[in-house]
């Protein structure tokens, strides 16, 4: 069985490698992705419309802001679903556990984590806020921030991490992230534009419409970062304990 699977995987891999020779060359200006009118429109206009050097961030948070908002909602719903399924399961699950957990925090690991967790969190803020210029943004910064809480839970125990970031607060913060995102959209709706049309925010803030879009994108990314951070940690806490929220990994 294992051999059949290996041969099958090998065949599919060779097929994909053979198909890869039909790809356009790297950086080819004549390739369909580069010559489509949408791409050339974004390349020509992001710098003028929004003053954001990183086009990916501009497309993600501004031109396709609606899409990203519902991606954030999907992340929130996923965390909520895992939490409620594991929490509300039959009580019998708690009895037949397959392993016991036997922990004692390690001196060297805890001290190293004490040293590097602040560094990780500052790096997460940097990734979040620097997404306009370099690769980064709300999702990446949120994951890095969530990893710092998971690291605390791993090196001490889940109780220590939950004392710093309780599970109820996780979902409050996650919902707050979506409220920030949708609130910026609604604010621009009330100021006379369309939903998530940030240029109209210039009417109440003392900036030009382009810079209003720039700063609104940062606000939106902060909302995404809140949601992703909280849901990452809530997912870890739920999955590592079968929803019991104690005696974790």
């Amino acid at each position, binding site marked *: 069985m294992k051999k059949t699977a290996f041969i099958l995987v090998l065949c599919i891999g060779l097929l994909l490698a053979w198909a890869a020779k039909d790809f356009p060359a790297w950086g080819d200006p004549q390739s369909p992705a580069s010559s489509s009118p949408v791409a050339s429109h974004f390349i020509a206009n992001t710098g003028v419309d929004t003053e954001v050097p990183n086009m990916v961030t501009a497309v993600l948070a501004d031109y396709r802001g609606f899409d990203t908002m519902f991606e954030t909602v999907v992340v929130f719903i996923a965390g909520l679903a895992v939490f409620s399924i594991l929490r509300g399961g039959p009580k019998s699950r708690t009895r037949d*556990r*397959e*392993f*016991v*957990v*036997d*922990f*004692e925090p*390690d*001196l*060297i*690991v805890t001290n190293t984590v004490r040293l*590097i967790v602040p560094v*990780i969190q500052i*790096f997460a803020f940097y*990734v979040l806020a620097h997404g306009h210029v*370099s*690769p*980064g943004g709300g999702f*990446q910064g949120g994951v*890095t921030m969530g*990893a710092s809480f*998971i*690291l605390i839970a*791993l*090196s001490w125990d889940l109780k220590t991490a939950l004392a710093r970031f309780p599970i109820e607060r996780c979902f409050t913060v996650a919902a707050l992230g979506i409220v920030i995102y949708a609130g910026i959209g609604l604010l621009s709706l009330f100021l006379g534009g369309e939903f998530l049309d940030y240029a109209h925010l210039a009417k109440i803030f003392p900036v030009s419409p382009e810079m209003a879009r720039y700063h609104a994108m940062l606000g939106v990314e902060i909302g995404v970062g809140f949601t992703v951070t909280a849901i990452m940690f809530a997912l870890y806490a739920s999955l590592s304990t079968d929803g019991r929220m104690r005696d974790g*990994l």
Partner: protein
Amino acid sequence: MKEWFAIIMGASLLVLMIPILYRIIVGPTGFDRILCANVIGTKTAVILVIIGTLFDRVDMFVDFAIAYALLNFVGAIVVSRYFNRTVPLQEMEKDKAKPRRRLKA
């Protein structure tokens, strides 16, 4: 010169990773496999800087390298905690007389 240095370093790193991959595939215990995967993960940070040199965007790839080194550390801690803290319940019942080995800190 910078490009050639990067290419030669990257190629020799990839060649030197083959013995470590061998240990991942053959390795008698699971710990050998994790250890060698961790070594390759650390070297990936170097390879990311090399790729950045070749694309002339080192400022960008350095951020990736930091994130990769961080996630590599988290992964190693996860695996070691998993093996350290969880004991299958049947084994626990079987050798209750023999206490687990403890490394006192």
